C-alpha cells in the first residue's frame, strides 16, 4: 500500500511524478492512497517510498492535458479517479475518444468545472490600488475560488499585468507578482485593502450601461452566480437596479414628447446645406 503525499502548491507536478512511478511499477489503483496537503493527518505519515521510475509508460496526450486540469478540482477523489483511468488506458486504446464512458465523462465534467473556475477568476478578480510610491504601481485583490485555481490561473495575470506589482490573496493559495517574478504562498484570511476611488466610477458605469427595459435577472445570475457577488464592488448596485427598472421604463413611456432643443433646427439647416454642397 502506497500513501502519496501531494502538496497544495505544485500539486500538478507532484501528482504526475507519482503517477508515472506507480504505473511503471504496475501498482494497481486499489494499492494507492492520495494525501492532499496532509489532510489524512499523522496516521498515514509514514509513507512507503514510491517505486523508482523503471520504464516510461506512454499515456495519450489528451489524458495528460486533462489531468493537468483535473488535479486542481476540489473533489477529494480527483487523484484516485485520474489514476484509475490511467490504469485502464494501459489496455484500452481509444478510451479517451469515448465521450460516453462514465468514468471519463465524470473526469471531463471535473475538467470543465476547473475551466469554468479559472475563467471566472480571470473575470472576477478585482484589484485595488495600494497607492505605494514605488516606480511600479502595486495592486492587490481578495478572491475566493471554488477550486484550487490560483496556481494555473496566475500566469494569465502575469502576462496581462506585467508592468505592475500585484497580489491575489485567497483562502487557498496566494499569488504574488513582484518585479516580474511570480511566486505562490499559503492561503490567508482576507487582508485589509485600502479603499479605491475607482470602484465608485466603475459602479457608475455598471449602473448606466444597464438597460432597464431588458431586465433578465436569470441570464445575469447564470453567468455571475451570487457566490461571487460579495467580492465584486459593482454587485452592491444590483438590487437597486432591479427594483427600479420598471419605474424607469414607465417613466420613459409616460413622458410626453418634447420640442426639439433650439439648436436642433439650426444644426439641421446647416447640415442640409453642407450635404447639398457635397452633391
Amino acid at each position, binding site marked *: 500500500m502506497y500513501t502519496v503525499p501531494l502538496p497544495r502548491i505544485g500539486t500538478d507536478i507532484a501528482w504526475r511524478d507519482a503517477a508515472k512511478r506507480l504505473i511503471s511499477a504496475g501498482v494497481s489503483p486499489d494499492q494507492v492512497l492520495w494525501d492532499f496537503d496532509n489532510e489524512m493527518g499523522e496516521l498515514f505519515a509514514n509513507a512507503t517510498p514510491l517505486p523508482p521510475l523503471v520504464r516510461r509508460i506512454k499515456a495519450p496526450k489528451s489524458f495528460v492535458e486533462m489531468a493537468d486540469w483535473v488535479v486542481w478540482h476540489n473533489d477529494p477523489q480527483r487523484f484516485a479517479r485520474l489514476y484509475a483511468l490511467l490504469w485502464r488506458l494501459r489496455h484500452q486504446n481509444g478510451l479517451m475518444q469515448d*465521450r460516453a464512458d462514465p468514468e471519463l465523462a465524470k473526469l471531463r465534467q471535473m475538467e470543465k468545472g476547473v475551466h469554468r473556475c479559472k475563467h471566472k477568476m480571470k473575470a472576477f478578480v478585482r484589484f485595488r490600488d495600494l497607492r505605494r510610491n514605488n516606480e511600479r504601481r502595486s495592486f492587490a485583490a481578495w478572491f475566493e475560488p471554488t477550486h484550487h485555481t490560483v496556481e494555473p490561473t496566475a500566469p494569465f495575470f502575469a502576462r496581462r499585468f506585467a508592468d505592475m506589482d500585484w497580489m491575489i490573496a485567497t483562502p487557498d493559495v496566494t499569488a504574488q507578482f513582484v518585479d516580474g517574478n511570480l511566486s505562490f504562498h499559503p492561503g490567508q484570511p482576507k487582508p485589509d485593502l485600502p479603499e479605491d476611488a475607482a470602484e465608485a466610477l466603475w459602479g457608475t458605469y455598471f449602473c448606466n450601461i444597464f438597460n432597464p427595459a431588458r431586465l433578465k435577472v436569470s441570464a445575469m445570475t447564470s453567468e455571475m452566480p451570487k457566490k461571487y457577488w460579495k467580492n465584486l464592488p459593482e454587485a452592491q448596485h444590483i438590487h437597486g437596479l432591479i427594483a427600479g427598472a420598471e419605474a424607469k421604463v414607465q417613466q420613459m413611456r409616460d413622458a410626453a*414628447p418634447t420640442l426639439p432643443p433650439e439648436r436642433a433646427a439650426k444644426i439641421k439647416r446647416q447640415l442640409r446645406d453642407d450635404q447639398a454642397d457635397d452633391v
Partner: protein
Amino acid sequence: MAKLDLTQKLAILSDAARYDASCASSGTTRRDSRDGKGLGSTEGSGICHAYAPDGRCISLLKILMTNFCIYDCAYCINRVSSNVQRARFSVDEVVQLTIEFYRRNYIEGLFLSSGIIQSPDKTMEDMLRIAKRLREVENFRGYIHLKTIPDAAPELIEQAGLYADRLSINVELPTDNSVKAYAPEKNPATIRKAMGDVKARKDVAGERSYTGKRGKRFVPAGQSTQMIVGADASTDATILSHSTRLYGDYKLKRVYYSAFSPIPDATVKLPLIKPPLVREHRLYQADWLLRFYGFGVDEITASRPDGNLDLDVDPKLAWALQNRAGFPVNVNKASKEMLLRVPGFGTRTVGRILSTRRHRSLRYEDLLRMGASLKKAKAFITALDWSPGGLTDSADLRARFAPPPEQLSLF
C-alpha cells in the same frame, strides 16, 4: 450650465452607449506584456468581467466620446432633436478611465463610439487621437473596438484599423427604405462602401508581399455591424437575407440584432414598444444555424407564411417539425450534416457523437453524457436502444415544446 464632473460624464456617456449590443473582445491576435513595457493582453477568447441585470456581458468599457450629434435618427437617444443631457469626454479622460479600469481587471478594453460633431472627419480624428494615445503613449495591448463614422475619409478609417482590434459600422435598419425614413442623414450606400473598404484593406493586410513580409496588422478581429429589430416593419426573412449578404459580401465577423428598446425623450415618429427580446433571441439562433449548421435562409424562414420566425419554438425545432419525413435519424449512421439538423444537438455534441461512434454503437444514455438535450432530440433520433416509435409523427409533438398559452398583459 455647471461643468460636469467625470462621474456625471461617465453616467451620461455610458447611458448613451448601452443600445449597442456588441461587447465582444474575442478573436483578435494574441498579445501580452511580458516584456514589462506595456499593459494588457489578448488571448483569443474574450472575457466577460461582469453581467448587468439585463443579462448582458460587460467586457469592454463601452462609451461615447460625446453624445452631441448633428444627425436626427429617430431610434437614437442621441439624435439632435432629443433633449437628453449632453456631455463630452476629453482625450485624457477616456484614456485614464480605460487604463485605470483595466489595471483593476474590470474590463478587457475600450469600445469607443461617438455622436457626429461638426463633421464626420472631425469626429473620427478625435476618436483616433484616443486610440493612438492608448497604443503609442500608454503602450496599451488590450482590446480596442472603434465604431467607425461611415462618412469619414477612407484614410482615417485606414488609420483606425491599425490601432483597433475591431471596427464596426452599424447598418442600423434592415432595409434602405427604413434607413431613409428613420435616419435621414445616413446613406446606406456610404455605409456599405465603408464596410467594403475595410474588407478590401483587411484582405490586402493578410497577403504577403514579394519579399514574404506580411503587411501591418489591420483590424485582426474583423468588423461587425448591428441592426435594430422591431423599429420598422421588416420581417425576419428580410433581416436574415440581409445578414447573409453582409456575411458574404463583407466577411463580417458578427451581425448583432438589437431589439428596439425604449429610450428617454423618444420621438413621436417612432412610438415606444416593449423590446421584442424573444424575437431578437430567435434571430440570433437563426443566425447561428446559417453560419455553423449548414441551413439556408429559405429553409429557416419557410415555416411561417408571414416570413417571421416562430416565437414559441427555436428555428431548428421549427424546421424539424415541418420536415418530419426526414426523421428519425440513426445517430450511429447519419452523416454529420444530418446530425447537425437534429434539434437538441449542438456542434459539440455532434463532434462527440462522430468521435465516439468510431469505437462503439451509441445508446440513449451515452447521448445524455455527451451533452445532448434529449428532451428535444428524442423524437427525432434512433439509437441502439432507442426508437421514438410514433412520437416523431404524433400530432401533438409541437405542443410538447411550445409554451402553454399565456394571458396577455397590457403594455
